[in-house]
């Protein structure tokens, strides 16, 4: 009977004898916190971001991958440390082939697929999602501190935090806290974070043999996807408003084991992977972290936090009577908000039982079709209740998804901002660097030549400068490769290039 109960198709035949379990089960199971659904939403966001970026040209022109985003790249697990091969391989093997980003049995997948796969495995195993929260106003990651939550949620959390049963069932050690996502992005133990991206991109050019170079390129693209996943979750209101309990422990799942954020579920079901809207034009920011948060408050987390409510950071219900004015109700509601923004506009208390919407400020002249619903509220006898419904989710997704794509595309271009020019003629190569921001420090352009067997060896280093340095190409060289690992005014910098010797 239990088995039948846990099947969604049987949940309409729940027997009364099990109603106790139905009522209590939400207290006994920890709820899903999968951020934007990795397999669909993150995959689609990443796909759109990469298509809007310059990565195709980078691969085709700088890395001599003629098919660019469609270039098949082989990750050979034999090139990896056995432990890493097992862990990474297990996560890749778990991916859904219909999404187009699961590598084949031969380890081959198009470059685009590797980036998308990286965004998906950034949250595999699922406990990694705990490190994808960031509250920019407090500079903290996911924490239980702060905010008054409903009693039911607190009860659930008592069980969720109980640890023993939950941890035994899930194999996780999630205690409703996590590292701030910007910190996780830079963590050495994040195998699809920025350090991995820099290291593997460099290895994709300077490794001695072609096989390991291809494997390193695949890993660099995976890490690029993992980096984008962190940024993309900065465009999830719950993730930037420290809202796990309210957003994730609410109702809405298809079964008692399947609770989750109704907004994220809405986005996943409405758009899937292929239906995610195209990214807007790439956003240019001064540093990697500025894509997430910055003093100018134009990081994605900053913008998302102050412009959107999440399910668990809404105003508390306001007590009203027939003499209460809209202004008074608005004032009371504002006092219960855990964050100062977004502000709550004037409330319309007419129409008992009618759903009203509060609209985002700053868009007063926008045509009705483009006005963004901020939250919904409903006057019932004695109080006004606030909530987010599918109409609000629809408007939020319409605003957020292209913007997330724009930030993610911008980050891709930012990471590949520097370009090493290799001009090869008459037995010499002229080397120059463009695209870096300010002066390049702490690094030189290292040059390698490739022989007929594909083996690469270093032969020179030159300063990273826009003024070309000319070097003689070693005899027998078939290809020249260059790598620069340094810093510029935008932070850490890795640039790579290669050209055939004509």
């Amino acid at each position: 009977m239990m088995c039948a109960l846990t099947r969604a198709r049987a949940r309409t035949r729940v027997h009364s004898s099990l109603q106790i379990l139905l009522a209590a089960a939400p207290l006994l199971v920890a709820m899903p916190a999968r951020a934007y659904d990795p397999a669909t939403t993150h995959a689609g966001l990443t796909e759109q971001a990469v298509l809007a970026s310059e990565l195709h040209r980078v691969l085709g022109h700088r890395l001599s991958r003629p098919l660019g985003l469609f270039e098949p790249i082989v990750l050979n697990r034999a090139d990896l440390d056995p432990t890493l091969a097992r862990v990474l391989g297990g996560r890749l093997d778990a991916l859904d082939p219909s999404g187009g980003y699961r590598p084949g049995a031969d380890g081959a997948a198009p470059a685009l697929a590797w980036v998308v796969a990286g965004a998906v495995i950034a949250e595999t195993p699922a406990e990694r999602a705990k490190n994808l929260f960031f509250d920019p106003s407090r500079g903290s990651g996911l924490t239980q501190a702060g905010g008054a939550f409903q009693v039911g949620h607190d009860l659930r959390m008592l069980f969720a935090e109980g640890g023993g049963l939950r941890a035994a069932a899930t194999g996780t050690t999630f205690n409703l806290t996590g590292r701030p996502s910007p910190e996780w992005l830079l963590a050495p133990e994040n195998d699809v974070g920025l350090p991995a991206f820099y290291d593997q991109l460099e290895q994709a050019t300077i490794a001695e043999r072609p096989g390991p170079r291809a494997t390193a390129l695949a890993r660099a693209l995976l890490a690029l996807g993992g980096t984008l996943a962190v940024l993309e979750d900065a465009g999830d209101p719950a993730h930037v408003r420290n809202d796990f309990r309210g957003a994730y422990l609410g109702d809405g799942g298809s079964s008692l084991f399947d609770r989750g954020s109704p907004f994220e579920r809405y986005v996943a079901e409405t758009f899937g992977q292929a239906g995610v809207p195209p990214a807007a034009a790439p956003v240019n920011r001064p540093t990697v972290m500025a894509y997430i948060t910055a003093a100018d408050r134009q990081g994605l987390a900053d913008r998302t936090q102050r412009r959107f409510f999440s399910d668990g950071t809404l105003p508390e219900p306001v007590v009203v009577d027939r003499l209460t004015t809209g202004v008074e109700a608005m004032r009371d509601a504002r006092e219960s908000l855990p964050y100062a923004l977004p502000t709550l506009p004037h409330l319309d208390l007419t129409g008992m039982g009618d759903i009203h919407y509060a609209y985002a400020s700053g868009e007063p002249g926008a045509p009705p079709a483009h006005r963004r619903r901020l939250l919904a509220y409903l006057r019932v006898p004695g109080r006004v209740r606030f909530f987010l419904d599918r109409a609000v989710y629809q408007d939020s997704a319409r605003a957020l998804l292209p913007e997330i794509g724009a930030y993610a595309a911008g980050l891709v271009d930012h990471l590949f901002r520097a370009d090493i020019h290799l001009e090869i003629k008459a037995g010499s190569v002229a080397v120059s660097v463009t695209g870096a921001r300010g002066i390049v420090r702490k690094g030189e352009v290292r040059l390698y030549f490739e022989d007929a067997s594909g083996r690469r060896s270093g032969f020179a280093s030159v300063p990273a400068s826009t003024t070309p340095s000319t070097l003689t190409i070693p005899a027998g060289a078939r290809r020249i490769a260059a790598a620069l690992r340094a810093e510029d005014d935008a932070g850490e910098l890795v640039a790579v290039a290669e050209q055939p010797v004509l």
Partner: protein
Amino acid sequence: MRRVVLLLAMVAASAACGPLIERAPFAVRPDSIRPADLLGPYDGIVIDADLDRPIAGATVAAAWAFENGIGFHAPSGSREVVVQTGADGRYTIPRLDDLPEGASARIRRFTLVVYHRGHVGWRSDRVFPGQAARRDFSQRGNRVRLDRWQPAYLHATHLVFLGGGAKVRLAAAWELQAAALELDGEHLPLATRAKSETTTAQVGLTMLDITKLLNDDEIRGVTGYVGKFEDGKLSDLPTTEFYDSRHFKALGKPESFDVGLRVWRLGAAASEVQYNKLMTTLPGAHATDEVGDGSFRAQSGEIGGLVFLVRERGVVVSMTCGSGQCSEPAQLAKLAKLVESRLPELPPEQPRLAPTPEAVPPSDADNPAVKPTPSPEVSP
């Protein structure tokens, strides 16, 4: 206390059960509103939408996606079944019987991907072109109506839409080069183009045909060769609406007597990209500027190559000739010039639609790219 113990026991018992199964977002049959059984089995027929006839040999890839975790969810595995349609266009996907284990295991989705060259790919969840959700998929008696490929469609958009596992990728591999060229030569938002595709009138698919550009006698006239040729196509790349090839194989002779001709007609921007790409990838490439708007030669063993670009026509031509056939470099140049002179005889290019102004997305106050300065609401 007893109640708590009972509840714990029931939860523990559930942990030993089979997986959760999501409610299928599609019907069991086309004429039913009853939700399907996500586990299957599935069956249907693949037909040509224009001819209303079954399509044999279409690749049908079915995949179940699994997730697990009680506290967190993540992909935990999948099952994929790939079949080819029979002569009657029908496919059958057996019921999933190898279920993942554990109370937290979920069967999250089922997706069917159908691919047949010359047609638009088909997914059970989305429609191409555009991004609309598909509403006509059913578990049993499914009818997959494949639309003919149209020149206005973009292979890059199509491949991204198609997805699918390794076997689908293999079947669609012939689109890779075209897709890459599109991304190289164009820089418009893909969705903008996809939107314009939806307004495209139905036009037939016409392959590029370069048979008029060069023949056996003309080769003999240039090289003085007296033997026979067997004419065919080079086999590494398929003929498409923008690419064709000719292989003049010298009968009874080694490869060094063969002549090869490849032509890409891609438009001005993409042809430039293709030309540069060939220059960086062909062995021993060096500029010669002897034919067209730019040309270079390459050499691989006994095979010499000459590639040239004709910007006005958006054409890149690659000619190869072995040292047995072309004993002098000038002979290869003569053949190339002969081909260049025949380019006007190619059938006219089918027009590709430019995006319409109304296809540009409306401005959005939330969009930082459209409105780079902070709006009042974002300036606390």
